[in-house]
C-alpha cells in the first residue's frame, strides 16, 4: 500500500495508457465494490445513527408518522435511558459478561496452547489428526443443537445425570432451576465448543516453525521443556497477542446463543446467565423500551471499541509488529 502512495512507483504498477485508462480502471473496480458497500451503508452504518434513539423517548412509528419521521416526534430525554445502569440487575449482567469472558479468555488460551503443543509432540501423526478432527467438530454446531446435547444429560425427568443420581439414591438436582451450577456448566460448554478451534489455530502455527531450530536447540542440550519455552512459545507469541486483542475487544460482547438457548431461557437462572446481549434482547421484547435497550447496546459497542483501541495501543507500544492496526 505504501508503495502505491509514494510518488516513485515501481515500473509494474505504474498505470499504462495515461490518466483516462487509470480513471476507467478505478471506475470498473469501484463498481465491484458497490453491492457490499451498499449493504455496509444500509445495514452497518445507517443503524449507527440510530444510536440517537438512546437519548430519546422513542415513539413507535404509526401509519401517519412512518419510521424515520417518528424520531422527530420523540422528545429528547438526555441520559434518562442510561439510568438502568444503576440498578442491581444491570450490575449483575455486566459482572457476568466481563467475568465469563475474562475467565474464558484465560482458560481458553492456556488449554488450547497446551493442547496444541501436546498434539505437535505426538509421534503417531494419524492419531493426532484424528484427535484434531474430533475436537474441531463442536465448533460447527449451533448452540441450539448443543442445548439439546446438554439436555440429554440434565433433563429433569429423563436426563442421564438425573437418573444416575436417583439410581445412586441421591436427590436429583433440578439443574435448570439451580443457578449455583451454571457458571461451571457454561464454562464447560464454552470450552467444549471453542477449544478445538483455537487448538487447530495454534497447531498450524507450530507446524509452521522451522524444525531446524529445535534440532539446534537439542544439539545445545536443551530439554524438550526448554525447547517449548524458548522456541515454540516465542513463535506463538504474535498469534497469542492478536487473538488476545480480538478477545479483549469483545469482552463486553457475549455469545447470545450460549446464554439464551443453552440454559433453555430459564428465568430462575438469570442471575448467572444474564449478559448484556440477552439483557438488551429481553428488555426490548418484554418492555418494548427502545430507548433503554438502544442505550444498553450503545454502551456495549462503546466499551468494546475503547477496549480494542486500548488493547491495540498497548500491544503497539510493546511490539509494533504484533498489533492489529
Amino acid at each position: 500500500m505504501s508503495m502505491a502512495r509514494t510518488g516513485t512507483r515501481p515500473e509494474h504498477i505504474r498505470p499504462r495508457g495515461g490518466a483516462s485508462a487509470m480513471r476507467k480502471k478505478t471506475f470498473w473496480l469501484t463498481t465491484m465494490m458497490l453491492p457490499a458497500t451498499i449493504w455496509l451503508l444500509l445495514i452497518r452504518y445507517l443503524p449507527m445513527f440510530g444510536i440517537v434513539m438512546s437519548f430519546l423517548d422513542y415513539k413507535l412509528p404509526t401509519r401517519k408518522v412512518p419510521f424515520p419521521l417518528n424520531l422527530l416526534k420523540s422528545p429528547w430525554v438526555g441520559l434518562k435511558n442510561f439510568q438502568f445502569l444503576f440498578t442491581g440487575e444491570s450490575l449483575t449482567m455486566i459482572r457476568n459478561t466481563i467475568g465469563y469472558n475474562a475467565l474464558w479468555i484465560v482458560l481458553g488460551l492456556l488449554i488450547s496452547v497446551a493442547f496444541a503443543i501436546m498434539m505437535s509432540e505426538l509421534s503417531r501423526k494419524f492419531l493426532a489428526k484424528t484427535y484434531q478432527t474430533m475436537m474441531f467438530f463442536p465448533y460447527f454446531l449451533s448452540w441450539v443443537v448443543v442445548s439439546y446435547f446438554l439436555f440429554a444429560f440434565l433433563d429433569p425427568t429423563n436426563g442421564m445425570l438425573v437418573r444416575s443420581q436417583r439410581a445412586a439414591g441421591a436427590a436429583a438436582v433440578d439443574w435448570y432451576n439451580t443457578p449455583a451450577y451454571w457458571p461451571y456448566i457454561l464454562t464447560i460448554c464454552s470450552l467444549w465448543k471453542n477449544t478445538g478451534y483455537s487448538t487447530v489455530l495454534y497447531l498450524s502455527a507450530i507446524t509452521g516453525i522451522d524444525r531446524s531450530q529445535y534440532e539446534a536447540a537439542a544439539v545445545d542440550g536443551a530439554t524438550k521443556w526448554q525447547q517449548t519455552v524458548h522456541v515454540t512459545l516465542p513463535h506463538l507469541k504474535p498469534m497469542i497477542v492478536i487473538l488476545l486483542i480480538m478477545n479483549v475487544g469483545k469482552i463486553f460482547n457475549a455469545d447470545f446463543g450460549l446464554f439464551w438457548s443453552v440454559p433453555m431461557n430459564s428465568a430462575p437462572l438469570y442471575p448467572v446467565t444474564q449478559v448484556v446481549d440477552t439483557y438488551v434482547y429481553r428488555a426490548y421484547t418484554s418492555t418494548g423500551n427502545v430507548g433503554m435497550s438502544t442505550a444498553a447496546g450503545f454502551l456495549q459497542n462503546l466499551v468494546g471499541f475503547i477496549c480494542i483501541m486500548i488493547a491495540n495501543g498497548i500491544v503497539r507500544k510493546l511490539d509494533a509488529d504484533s498489533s492489529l492496526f
Partner: protein
Amino acid sequence: MTTAAKKNTGAFRLNMVSRKTESVFHLILGLFALACIIPFIFVIIISFSSENSIRQIGYSFVPSSWSLDAYRQVFNLGDALWRSYFNSFFITIAGTVLSVTMCVLYAYPLFRKDYKLRGFFSFLSFFTMIFGGGLIPTYIVCKNLLGMSNNYAALIVPMLVSPFNIIIMRTFFQTSVPFDLIEAATIDGSGEYTTLVRVILPIVKPGIATVALLTALGYWNEWFLCLLYVTKRDLYPLQYLLMEMQRNAEFLARNSSMIGASGAQAVASLPSQTMRMAVVVFIVLPIACAYPFFQRYVVAGLTIGSVKG
C-alpha cells in the same frame, strides 16, 4: 529430525518426549476428543431408543429396547419438517451464493495495489468490525425501513457481508495471484470483470471454497434472525423449528394441569423426546457427513482470518 521421527520404531527416539509423557498426552487429548463427539453419539442413541426404555431408565447409552418410532414420527411431521428442511437448504444456498459473490467482488479491488480507493474501502469494512449501532437500531432499520419481516430476505440479507470473510478472501488473492498476471491481462485488452472471472477466479478457487464453507455453515446454523424477524411458521429454518419444539414442549408440560382436558390432549400429541432428538440428528448429519472433507478448507481460512484479521 522429521525423518528420524518417521522411522521411529520405539527404540530410537531422537529429540522427542519420553514414551511415558507421550502416553499422558494421548490420554488427555484422547479423552477430550472423545468428549467432543460423545454427546452427538448419545443423541443418536436416544433417537433410536424406544419410548418404553426412556420411561424406564431415562436417556441411556444402552437403552433397554430400540425403536424407529422417532423417525416415523419425524416423517409424519410431514409438511412442517420438509418445509423447514427446504427453508434451511434454500437460505443456505441462496445466502452463500450471494454472500460469496459480494465478498469476492469487494475483496478483489482491495487486493489491487493500483486501486486508488483501496484505503477508504478497507476502512469502510474494517470499522464495522470494531463498532456498530447495536442490535435494536439494526433491527429497526431492517424491519421498518427495509421491510425485512416474515420473508426470506430477513433470513438472508442481514448476514450477507462479513468483514472477516473479506479479509480471508483478500489474503488468498495476495498470496496466490501474481500481479504481473493482471498486468498481462490488461495489456491483452481484457476488461476488469473479464480478468477477474477468466484469469483470477480459477487461481483462487481454494479461497472461494473456504469462504463459501464458512458462510454456508453460518447460514445453516442460524436461528437468531428467525427469532428476530420471522413469526410465520412456513419460513422457519430447521434450527428454529427445533428450538420452538423445545419451547412448546416445556410450556405445555408446565401448564398441562391448568389447561385441563385440551391441555392433556396437546401433551399427548406433543413431539416426543426421542423425536426431537431425531430432528437434532437430521440437523447435524449433513455437517457430520461433509465435515471430514471440508475441514481442511475451513482450517486454512480460519487460520488466515484470525492472523490477518
